[in-house]
């Protein structure tokens, strides 16, 4: 009985940590490959080299322009999606009723509707409006895809907000826009910041729809990576993957640290 019980308790735990290893460890392989001293995808043979990281900064290799393109598109998308999303979520929260609930479902549907379907529709629409392979076209698509995350993040913040706060301001005679700007917005600032960050990340990572509506003129970083993976030779690909991996890890560590600190302060 006893060994069986120990096995029953230990085996799932062991499996869980093996799975955690399966999730994380494969990501690390890009690091040694980025440091290879060869000019093809391989592990370092006779020593390590940082040449492939330097290659990322060479304008003519196309990586730097793509990084800047993605950063610019991401910032524009984040600013606009956050503005639209915050206005919508606050308005829907304050007004209530059928119309905002219905629109909320439309706005959130990109989460579940496969992006390939949207891509087919947008190729047709942008072809007609001559917006294929344009910055405007890419930014608009990214805004639509980022809006659900902004709406969810701001909505989560609003659900913690007491509606009586707004009623108090109104009964004291504050004008509607003043209530929104001075009472509601400051109280949901963390949700707005989270929404803006999520919107940037969505745009920075978006590939499926972007692949269909861009060509040679607008080459976002994911698009550049996509082409490079299909060729599967350039170690600079491993270098950019390493950079992205390190940024992700640093961001998560920074968040954990700040949460730990604020948690201690309140405790």
């Amino acid at each position, binding site marked *: 009985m006893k060994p069986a019980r120990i096995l029953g308790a230990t085996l799932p735990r062991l499996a869980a940590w093996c799975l*955690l290893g399966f999730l994380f460890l494969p990501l690390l392989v890009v690091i040694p490959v980025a440091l290879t001293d060869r000019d093809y995808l391989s592990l370092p043979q006779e020593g390590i080299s940082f040449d492939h990281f330097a290659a990322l900064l060479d304008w003519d290799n196309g990586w730097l322009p793509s990084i800047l393109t993605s950063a610019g598109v991401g910032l524009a998308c984040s600013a606009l999606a956050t503005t639209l999303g915050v206005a919508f979520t606050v308005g829907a929260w304050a007004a209530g009723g059928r119309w905002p609930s219905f629109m909320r479902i439309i706005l959130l549907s990109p989460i579940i509707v496969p992006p390939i379907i949207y891509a087919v529709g947008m190729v047709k629409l942008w072809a007609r409006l001559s917006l294929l392979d344009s910055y405007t076209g890419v930014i608009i698509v990214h805004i639509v895809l980022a809006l659900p995350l902004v709406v969810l993040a701001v909505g989560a913040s609003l659900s913690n907000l007491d509606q009586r706060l707004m009623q108090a301001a109104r009964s004291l005679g504050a004008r509607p826009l003043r209530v929104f700007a001075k009472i509601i917005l400051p109280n949901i600032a963390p949700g707005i910041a989270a929404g803006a960050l999520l919107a940037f990340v969505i745009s920075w990572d978006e590939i499926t729809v972007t692949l269909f509506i861009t060509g040679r003129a607008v080459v976002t970083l994911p698009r550049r990576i996509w082409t490079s993976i299909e060729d599967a030779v350039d170690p600079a690909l491993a270098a950019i993957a390493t950079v992205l*991996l390190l940024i992700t890890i640093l961001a998560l560590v920074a968040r954990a640290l700040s949460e730990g600190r604020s948690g201690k302060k309140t405790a």
Partner: protein
Amino acid sequence: MLPHSAGGYGVSNFKRTALMLTLPASIVAISLYAAPIAQVLALSVTEPTIGWSNYQRLFANPAVGRVVMTTLKVSATTTVLTVLASYIVAFELIHLSARLRRVALFLVLVPFWISVLVRAFSWITILRRQGILNSALIKTGIVSTPLELVYNLLGVTIGMVHYMIPFATLLLYANLSDIDRRIMQAARSLGASPAIVFYRVWLPLSLPGIALSTLFVFVFSLGFLVTPALLGAGKVLMLAEYVSIQISNTSRWDLATSLSTALLLVVGALVFVAMRSSALRAVFTAKPQP
């Protein structure tokens, strides 16, 4: 709910301002999301001729049949493996000490946030013929010729499961964290063995989370482009890649739009069925559950 008596000015004025705020995003969503998708649906029955002929051809097309079978096979395998693995990880997560849980969550969140392209590239680096795994296996003499690990069904499934686990784990972790642990204590104190507690208490209480993550993983898998395209390299042709080929290479809009419509209908039907479960309804309507 707003009280209709409050305020020094008309409630309608306040409500009008609030509704005005919802307009810009609504216009964007309708004209630049709903309308283009509606046009895909419309084109599927009007291009090149009006009627259901596209769908008749869809069912008669053996290539489409193969693609659909591959898609269903890969999606079903991915869903079963992902939900099973994610449940094991999520179950461990809620039983860990705060410190270890932070480590474990970190291992889930890094792959969750990193670009899908970086993940696909990592797997190609590991699994291809001259890849890290095959080199190691040959060097240690375990195999003499490289194993075919990628650009086939196996590679696509590995990549898809790896993509979906963080996502499903976070869904299940949220669900399991909400379960009142005193129920398990009560069951234990009444003499139930750990196995009984798991099968009779944990499992039934986590069914909504299991259903929700199954739905999401399956729906995502059905329309997934990136990982199947990169790890299948044309040899494992799934729906999304097939649609993309119809547009980019052959300009077969009839096929692309009717397949997209069929996919949308399947996804819509799955979501409709799942909306009966309160967990999903809560996500979409933001209403507290009764």
